[in-house]
């Protein structure tokens, strides 16, 4: 089975976010990048587990500049077999999905796995867009994945709770919590990652339909109002009359 795992970088979760150039640019000074947790903990690890139990190959793909390669090496250290970098800034979800789909279309992957969203934009757009380009079914917000020949059984989150579904390969999924557990790369993996293939491909032409005009920081919170444990009637009153939420 051939797995393609889409990997995005994301600022470390403890990063202080700030902007430059009149709030039009994300300030990267001092920012440590990690693999987007949903891509790493769930999509990548589950693909590796399935490869280990049923055979196959795991390729990771990133749309990004050369500066993203350390993050890609980490995915290789965790166990991916090879990496592909599309040499372009990931400025728009539509563009990223188009690039990944153009690559995937040539390589006949059985399963394309994405994290359900990035922790920088929480957009949840790329999986559905890749599926649209490839005309593959999409299992969105999948929490479990098992394969048996070309049939995959998945669980997914929906408005009514968890649903079990069956689908034939090839398909696309977006991975949510539950699918696998985080893996810490060991020394052997880190050494091996240095020599694993990392192919760089130039982007194909594709339209870009969105553009970030500016960023904004949330306005500061008003001071917290403190109440004593014995003032719960007052709290309820405040929630009703002052905050107007109940």
């Amino acid at each position, binding site marked *: 089975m051939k797995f393609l795992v889409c990997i995005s970088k994301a600022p470390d*979760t403890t990063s202080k976010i700030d902007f430059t150039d009149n709030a039009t640019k994300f300030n990267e000074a001092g920012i440590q990048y990690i693999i987007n947790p949903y891509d790493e903990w769930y999509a990548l690890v589950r693909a590796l587990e399935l490869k280990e139990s049923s055979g196959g190959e795991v390729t990771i793909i990133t749309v990004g500049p050369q500066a993203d390669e350390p993050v890609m090496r980490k995915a290789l250290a965790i166990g991916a077999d090879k990496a592909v970098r599309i040499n372009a800034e990931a400025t728009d979800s539509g563009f990223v999905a188009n690039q990944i789909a153009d690559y995937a279309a040539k390589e006949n992957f059985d399963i394309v796995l994405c994290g359900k969203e990035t922790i920088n934009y929480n957009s949840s757009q790329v999986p559905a867009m890749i599926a649209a380009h490839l005309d593959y*079914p999409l299992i*969105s917000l999948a929490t479990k994945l098992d394969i048996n020949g070309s049939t995959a059984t998945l669980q997914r989150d*929906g408005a009514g709770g968890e*649903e*079990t579904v069956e689908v034939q390969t090839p398909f696309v999924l977006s991975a949510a919590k539950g699918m696998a557990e985080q893996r810490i790369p060991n020394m052997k993996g880190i050494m091996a990652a240095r020599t694993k293939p990392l192919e760089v491909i130039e982007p194909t032409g594709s339209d870009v339909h969105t553009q970030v005009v500016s960023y904004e920081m949330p306005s500061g919170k008003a001071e917290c*109002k403190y109440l004593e444990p014995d003032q719960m009637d007052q709290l309820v009153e405040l929630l009703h009359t002052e905050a107007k939420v*109940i």
Partner: protein
Amino acid sequence: MKALVFADSKDGSIVKSSFEAISYASKFASEVTVVTYAGVSDDQLSALGAYGAQKVIKASSLSDNDSQALTSLVCSVAQSEGSEAVVFSQDFTGKAVAGRVAVKLNAGLVSGAIDYPDTSSGFTVKKMAFSGKAFAHVKITSPIKVVSVLPNALGAENKGGSASVTEFSGQIEGSKVKITQSAQASSGGAAPLPEAELVVSAGRGLKGPENWGIVEDLANALGATTACSRPVADIGWRPHHEHVGQTGVAIRPNLYIAAGISGAIQHLAGVNGSKVIVVINTDPEAPFFKAADYGIVGDAFDVLPKLTEAVKKFKAS
């Protein structure tokens, strides 16, 4: 501008986030058409007029929410109606379908909108970025715009009125995904977490899963949905779907009550869009108090039951 809104339903009723999406479209579009699938009575569909729809098109032959089938339905209606904007709710179905529709219509998509589009120069939509630590204003430059609206961000305005209801007559692509076991009914009938207006959440300060009764009692008294911090879900005290934060569900309720949660940056990232935050913690230095509107320095085992009693008294009065 002509807008098309996809409305989802559950157990025979249009979901609340779809009312919000229709209301959203009616703020910037002169004509609003709604497209939906099987399962909802014509009376209910006609009543969508109250939120700003003129016309509702339903596909009675389509009963499941597969992304390929729904995409073909939405795109077909968008084309026949000449829609210039397509609006979804950023809920479970919206996440699976909006991106697909955007690709097929060769359109730009902004997902998770938290404000109405600014049309003073083009079409610019505000959304959360960096897990709620900032906002981004994103301009859609394609002729057709696709927007998905964050549930519970803007509310739905009922202005009265009714819409015409017609049957969809085109072709719908078949689904390649077979549902072998449908969703288990969610517990207690509380709203699913991403849509909930009131949320009661607890963390490691509760000491063990056997102590969650006092959290559930408060949630029941309020009609709220329960949530938890990440370690609580990781050690299996609570189900994974209750985990909120940067790597869990990001929520934006009207009221978020957090008991025994320290307020780590990753937790705050998923909840700081809440309109009002109440924090209960034994430690006056807990970082969560900096993000709180109301704080109680105290033991959750003492405060939660007292708050539950106060809520019950208020509801009875």
